[in-house]
């Protein structure tokens, strides 16, 4: 029965999201618009994170390492 409880819990979470952002009060076409906007934004943030976060992390790693003796030997192409 864990799947059922999990589903109920997720549905309850979705209801809380609806109540907080007031999409509970919107007409169906407004909801479609709102969710599309939110999902698009979320997707774009995740995509940007996927592309740029590894590069940022490795650049930062390189920067921190070049202060130690070991870092002089680290080259990343």
């Amino acid at each position: 029965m864990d799947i059922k409880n999990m589903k109920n819990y997720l549905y309850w979470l979705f209801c809380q999201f609806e109540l907080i952002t007031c999409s509970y009060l919107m007409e169906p076409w407004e909801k479609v618009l709102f969710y599309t906007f939110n999902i698009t934004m979320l997707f774009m943030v995740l995509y940007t994170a996927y592309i740029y976060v590894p590069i940022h992390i490795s650049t930062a790693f390189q920067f921190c390492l070049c202060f130690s003796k070991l870092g002089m030997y680290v080259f990343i192409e």
Partner: protein
Amino acid sequence: MERPGRAAAAAGAQPRANGCSGAAHGALRNGYVRGLPAHDTQVNHIVHNGGLYKRPFNEAFEETPMLVAVLTYVGYGVLTLFGYLRDFMRQWKIEKCQNATEREEQKDFVPLYQDFENFYTRNLYMRIRDSWNRPICSVPGAKVDMMERVSHDYNWTFTYTGRVIKDIINMGSYNYLGFAQNAGTCQEAAAKVLSQYGAGVCSTRQEMGNLDKHEELEKLVARFLGVESAMAYGMGFATNSMNIPALVGKGCLILSDELNHASLVLGARLSGATIRIFKHNNMQSLEKLLKDAIVHGQPRTRRPWKKILILVEGIYSMEGSIVRLPEVIALKKKYKSYLYLDEAHSIGALGPSGRGVVDYFGLNPEDVDIMMGTFTKSFGAAGGYIGGKKELIDYLRTYSHSAVYATSMSPPVVEQIITSVKCIMGEDGTTVARVQQLAENTRYFRRRLKEMGFIIYGNEDSPVVPLMLYMPAKIGAFGREMLKRNIGVVVVGFPATPIIESRARFCLSAAHTKEMLDRALKEIDEVGDLLQLKYSRHRLVPILDRPFDETTYEETED
């Protein structure tokens, strides 16, 4: 779960309604912050103010949790954006405009309907409008019948399905003592008077509308309140708004509480006196205003004020708080001003014998110069009264607009009031302990709600229980979910309350039995879990009793 105080009361002594059982079950005294285990030994600040209070004054307003406030603003922000979008679509005729607009021929004239000011009404209120103006079709007692209605165009229009929802537990009517009945002694007496006098009076008090029933009512009300004389009017709102202009005028000063009712505000504005506002139930603010008024006098001429009138209410219906009457009377006597007490919600509902907030604090009714109240709430009728010294009431009989121009009260309504007042005073032979029942219901209901974890505002003894909702979608959701479960509640939102502090307001009644309250509490618990309304962190903030200084308050001079 009986409290120790209750056992002692049941042992033989008369059970004290609105009694001080606060200390017995661990509720906080005014000014204490719960949290540390040994809090009884901690004294934070002033509690009893020099022995003016004969019982502890338990009032608390829990602070809004920061996350909830932020999310409420987020919700309002989203709705505002969609409001702009919908307005844009209406302007460019992409969507049909369903509210009032001018005709095509008049588009170039001065605008008749203020478009932007109705933004809130068009875009936020319309979405949740089905929680208000619900048509009921039976007497609004403890249970009520309601006509079911649906809307197919998102609350712009409603149609009745024809079904009647029966036996909804009524937690919204101001039926504090349960006199809203269609059977019983009150109804029989009113029916007899109806067959004797008819329904209409067809005149004003000053002309041919002064019936012997009105004289009888006024003598009875004066005896009930403990004042010299009283006068009754047909409408409670009109009592305030038409009589304050008769009492004060230009050159007088009105000190009015922040959260006073619209009738008091309207009466104060109509009178033409200078109005200054003091913070809600805050005696330091009031004292500062009084001191400044006496010291500085009128704004330009520096002459002394002709009269200073303090306007307060007995119970503030949006907050559930009770006025600090002993302190107000002490200030009034010290600074020689007059006190106007509006007991609309507290008459009949507070005090061991139901005589209002003066009785609740054990004070002398002659200390309050003008005692005003309404018959709408606890007496199950309609109208208002003003009580005070004989000279004052005789003056009002001649100079009040309401006496001169308004039709006098209808005779069956007068008889309902007479019978209910006699019932409260215990003179008609029946010993129905309505006031005690209401006090017990109040204590029980408030305690249970607080234990469940909701944020409840107001005084422990007030039968008006505001439960905080905060978010706009939850206002609509709460009203609808409670109706699905057959409980009728009143939810309140923006213009009546601050924008983020929307609430559901329960009005308890002596007609509610414990089973009804238990059922209502069970449903409230369920809906609270469903909508996640249990915000309380059980940390009560002490009331602002901090001493004022010059930087604390700003005065606005009219």
